[in-house]
Each structure stands twice: as structure tokens, then as C-alpha cells.
């Protein structure tokens, strides 16, 4: 349905319920929807499941959400980083559940959710601890593990530019998980640096078509 152009990030994240599954874009800081995460902290929803590549860096953004105790469970590929002290402390204290998923499988499981695929056989992780106890199958001489979709109630993504219909383009490697998460959540919220008139984005260059986007909000260009 028609995209809603929000006046601020607080409006953009209104209505998130306790226990929701939230897909959070970004790879490191590139594409990280910092203002939306800050607004989600103010909004107050708790008991969240967060799906994101990392488990927060430093003390801001996703790390701050974790630090406030709002996240019950995190699904990510690479939680352990030099500056993931907030997550590390929670994890070692047994105060957060962790599901580690190979990075490409994480992306493909969200793509499957967005594409209506019930499950898929992936060669990634076969024979490793991450596939232990899981269904495997040999197909044409190769072994695969069965992977299921990951669907969000909410996706928070950082894009570059939106038109007033909700078509999105990204910048460079900040594209990363945004276009995939936009297909995989019931409500998709994008923070962008610029909102332009309908017709100002080349239809050949649209990365996330408007159909996937529910709310957009213009925020300042995130600090480097």
C-alpha cells in the first residue's frame, strides 16, 4: 500500500510490539539505520528478536538497544568484534540468546522469506558444527543442508534516496542487507538522506521497488 512519509524517526517506528522480530540493516556502520534504532529505543518495545549481520559496535545504535536490555535473542553471522563489548557482556552473563548463521545463509534465508520459498537446500556449512543435527540431503552428488526462511515483523533499513512513492536506491556497499530485508518483513521502514519527487529516480536503477516499503523518513547523513 501507499508509502507513508514520516515527519521523524519516532513516527517511523511507532507501534512496534514487545516480542517483535526486527531485521536491522547494515554491515558495520555502512547502511546501519542509526536514527531508527535510536527511535526504537525511545519507543520502548522489549523482548525483541533482532536479525542483523553484527551484534552491535561500540555503545551506539544496535549496541545501545542491546545495552538497554530490549533484545531477548539475536540472529547474526558475526557477533564477536573488537568493539562488541555490550553484546559480549550480555552473552557471557547469559542474558541474550545467540543464533549464529553463515552470512550468505542469513541473506538467503531472508530472501526466501521475501520470495515465498518454504525452505531451500544450501551447501554452506555442511559438515560443520552449524549444520549439526539438521536435515541434510545429497543432490546430484553434493551434500546440502535444509535452511528455513527468516521473516521479520519489522525491518529497519538505511538507504540513500527515496522518491515519494517509496522507491529506494542505496550508496555503494551500504546497499548490503537493505534490499533483502525490505522483502522479508511485514512493515518496512527506511531512513534516507534525501526524499525526491516521483519520477526523479531512473526506473532502471531502482534497487528496492516501492511495493516493499511502508514508511520512509529523511534523517541527517549518518556521521562517518
Amino acid at each position, binding site marked *: 500500500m501507499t508509502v507513508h512519509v514520516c515527519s521523524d524517526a519516532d513516527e517511523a517506528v511507532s507501534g512496534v510490539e514487545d516480542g517483535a522480530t526486527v531485521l536491522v540493516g547494515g554491515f558495520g556502520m555502512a547502511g546501519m539505520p542509526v536514527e531508527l534504532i535510536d527511535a526504537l529505543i525511545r519507543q520502548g518495545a522489549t523482548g525483541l528478536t533482532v536479525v542483523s549481520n553484527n551484534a552491535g559496535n561500540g555503545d551506539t545504535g544496535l549496541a545501545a538497544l542491546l545495552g538497554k536490555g530490549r533484545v531477548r535473542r539475536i540472529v547474526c553471522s558475526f557477533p564477536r568484534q573488537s568493539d562488541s563489548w555490550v553484546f559480549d557482556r550480555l552473552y557471557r552473563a547469559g542474558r541474550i540468546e545467540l543464533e549464529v548463521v553463515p552470512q550468505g545463509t542469513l541473506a538467503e534465508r531472508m530472501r526466501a522469506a521475501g*520470495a*515465498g520459498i518454504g525452505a531451500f537446500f544450501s551447501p554452506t556449512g555442511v559438515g560443520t558444527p552449524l549444520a549439526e543435527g539438521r536435515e541434510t540431503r545429497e543432490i546430484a552428488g553434493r551434500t546440502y543442508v535444509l535452511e528455513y526462511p527468516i521473516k521479520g515483523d519489522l525491518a529497519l533499513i538505511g538507504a540513500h534516496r527515496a522518491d515519494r512513492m517509496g522507491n529506494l536506491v542505496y550508496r555503494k556497499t551500504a546497499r548490503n542487507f537493505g534490499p533483502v530485508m525490505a*522483502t522479508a518483513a511485514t512493515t518496512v521502514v527506511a531512513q534516507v538522506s534525501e526524499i525526491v519527487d516521483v*519520477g526523479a*529516480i531512473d*526506473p532502471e536503477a*531502482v534497487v528496492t521497488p516501492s511495493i*516493499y516499503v511502508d514508511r520512509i523518513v529523511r534523517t541527517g547523513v549518518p556521521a562517518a
Partner: protein
Amino acid sequence: MNTTTPPVENLGRGPLGKDEMAARVARDIEHGSYVNLGIGLPTLVADHLPEGSGVVLHTENGMLNMGPAAGPGQVDPDLTNAGKIPVTELPGAAYFHHADSFAMMRGGHLDTCVLGAFQVSATGDLANWHTGAPDAIPAVGGAMDLAIGAKKVFVMMTLFTKDGTPKLVPHCTYPLTGLGCVDRVYTDLATFRVGPEGATVLETFGIAYAELAARLDLPLPATRLS
């Protein structure tokens, strides 16, 4: 609280013509929704969407915000709809490849899709790709993807074949396109809701409910829960 509503009988008029059917479907398409109109009769619906409806048309060959058919001098062989008819592009359009286009459908992102049909069952099974004739060459195209590919699936068809056989049936006899996928059936004589509870009549056109029920070979309660 559940209430029951009898069907609205629009008498003192004939059955709906093609354009009236299209207008009737258009009335049920929500403002700002994303819609795929199947080949044939459903294409007419586009002409009846009100000015400023904000409806965005999807064509499964890879485009959102498709415009009307191309007029003289507007034909571009690289820009067609799913029926391979030259069309136009509206501001805010987006192009994407076939895997992305059908992911959009299969993933349930379209709000509504409007399809033609050979038969629809009372429980919403759809048959619209194959007559089952033994010498017919099977050709499915995007029919099965469309059948399961929208939040709401509307069928638009005449209620009877030319020889008077009902196309809304207890069970489809033609090969199926999709199982339990249809939500509403818009016909020249009546509009139906179909689904797990069976078929109910929402309204009739130029025919009394009792006469309609008598001509159909299925249970058709006179009232429905709403």
C-alpha cells in the same frame, strides 16, 4: 458479534456488461494498492480505476507502475505487458528481472490480483490454464504463480459458458491452476465470496437470488456472516 446479511438483489436491470464488470471489480480495489491484472477481461479493470486511485499496476514480465497501452507513436518493443502488448511507463516505475518479479508475487507482496477463469470452485480452487482437452498443448505461463501470488485473488468471468454450464462449481473438472486461492468471483450475474466455508452471494445483477441459486449446482446460503 456476527451478523448476517442477505445478498443485495439488483433487479430492474440486466446482467453486467464487460465494462460494468470491470467497474464493479475496480470498486473493490483499495486506494494505493499494488495490483496485477491478468490477460484478457481483467485488463479492462485499469480503465475503471478512479483518477487519483494511487493504484500501482504490476506486470509479471518485470515492471511496477505500468501505464496504459501504448498509443500510436508510443510503441517500444522493449516495453510490453504480460500479454506482449506494448504499454507505457508511469513516473515512479521500476524494472526488475523475472526471478525478482515472481519472488514479489510468490512472496505475497501484491495486494490484489484479478484473473480470468474457466472454472472456480466454491472453496476457491481455480482452473484457468488448461481445458483438459487431450490434444491441447499445455501452456501455463504465469497463471499458477498469479493464483497463489497476491494477498487477495479476484476472479472475473461470465458465470455461465455459452452453452449455459455454470463456471462456479462444487469441484473443478478442468485441471487446477491453484488450490483454495480465490477470494472473490465477479461475474455478469452476481458477485460471490468463495473460500473454506463455501460460496456465498454478495449481490446479484438482473436476476433474483432464488433463480440464481436454482441455476447453480452448489449450496448457496441466502445469508452470510459478516
